[in-house]
């Protein structure tokens, strides 16, 4: 008698310890003091202090209708991001626990294998929900545990009624498995850990935005130093470093060409500097990538 060919499919059972670990990690995110003490929280504080410093350092050169530092950063951590992290973490936790329970019945031919196509649908719904939560984190629906709990209950109902729904749908479409068993297993494991990964990606984006803002402030400070040196007379008018100070000089030259100024003197230079810093302020608060906070 020939031996039966080995089953080469990947099953969730093999990933149980990993899923357990991720469930534990997600559970940690429920604890708000931990989130508030999270090293990344300092990013939000850093953005706030960068903005405050900018407002104060360029006092008098910034438009009067500025927004307060509290207003500027209020969306970025405690008010929105922490509740969103809790929402995402709770979804991943519920789902991981469910998968761990599913692993218990996985080997049973009656209850296990047949439900794999259901996992494929559930994975997709959970992934869409997590991505939506990360992208639209300002919306209250993605804050806290409510929406994740409701969605999880709906998913359980779907799982329970999978065959009925499938039979019903088969009258209209063929809802067969798009992925094979191994692919569904990998997809499910990814879904369990996707929340934490996407939260980290989000934090990385915040960090990149912060670096962009810092560079921007450093640049305007370098221009401001030249402006101060000009006012101190350390740089004479005809020796202005045009290459280093191109934006200001360009502004002056354009005004000169339009006949708005007769000569590029100290006043023209000051006005251009003021306009440049006002523009920098507007950019500082309106750049498209600031919306990624």
């Amino acid at each position: 008698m020939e031996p039966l060919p080995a089953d080469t499919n990947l099953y969730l059972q093999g990933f149980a310890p990993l899923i357990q670990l991720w469930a534990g990690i997600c559970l940690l995110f429920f604890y708000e003091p931990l989130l508030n003490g999270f090293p990344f929280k300092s990013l939000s504080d850093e953005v706030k202090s960068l903005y405050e410093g900018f407002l104060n350092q360029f006092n008098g050169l910034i438009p009067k209708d500025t927004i307060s530092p509290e207003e500027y950063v209020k969306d970025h951590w405690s008010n929105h991001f922490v509740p969103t992290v809790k929402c995402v973490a709770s979804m991943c936790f519920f789902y991981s626990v469910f998968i761990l329970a599913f692993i218990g019945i996985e080997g049973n031919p009656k209850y296990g294998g047949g439900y794999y196509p259901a996992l494929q649908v559930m994975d997709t719904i959970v992934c869409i929900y997590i991505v939506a939560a990360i992208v639209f984190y300002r919306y209250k629906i993605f804050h806290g545990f409510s929406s994740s709990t409701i969605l999880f209950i709906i998913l359980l109902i779907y799982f329970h009624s999978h065959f009925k729904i499938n039979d019903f749908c088969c009258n209209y479409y063929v809802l067969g498995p798009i992925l094979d068993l191994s692919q569904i297993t990998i997809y499910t494991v990814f879904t369990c850990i996707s929340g934490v990964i996407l939260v980290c990606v989000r934090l990385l984006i915040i960090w990149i935005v912060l670096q962009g803002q810092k560079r921007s402030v450093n640049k305007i400070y370098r221009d401001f130093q030249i402006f101060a040196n000009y006012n101190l007379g350390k740089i004479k008018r005809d020796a202005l470093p045009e290459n280093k100070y191109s934006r200001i000089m360009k502004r002056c030259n354009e005004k000169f060409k339009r006949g708005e100024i007769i000569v590029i003197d100290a006043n023209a230079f000051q006005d251009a500097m003021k306009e440049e810093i006002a523009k920098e302020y507007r950019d500082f608060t309106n750049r498209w990538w600031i919306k990624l906070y």
Partner: protein
Amino acid sequence: MCTPLEEYRTYLNKLVEAKSPLLFSNGGKDYASILMSILLKHTKKSIHMFCEGFKPDLIKSPEYWNALKKYLNQKGKELHVIVNSEDYVTEEPLKALFEEQKKREFDGTIQVRLISEKGRNMIKDQFNDALNNFAVFDDDMYRLEYDPQNYMAVGSFNQPNDVCLLQTLFKNVFEISNPLTSNGAIAS
């Protein structure tokens, strides 16, 4: 909204206590008053100032005025002022300086002078044709007003090189300026 005054004061206090070399902008009367009061408070030995006329509109703002009075009460601390105009000799700020001169028996620690034409040109030469007001505090702090009408200035709490430049200019102009009394300038 503008930066709240209290927040701005806190910011400047942090810079001065850390002896930060950061350059900053300073604009508007209330903000200028806060900066000047902080500079006066942290001055250990001398102030050298060139201004339009020691005009009361900024100096008499409560914060600045109180800090100046405290500074003048500390005997031995120097205040040398060059004014561009003698129009304000009868106003309170200058009168307070003249009284202090008397109290100190004209020991030279408080001196007020009226700028000469040559001195004015020296300042313009230095500042790219602008008659910028400036004040130097000890050997490291300064405020340079490039738009006196709007009290727009740059400043720092720790820039010895810039201060040295301004000190040298001040001394050169001071030497060729005429002493000013409550009765007007004394021709040399």
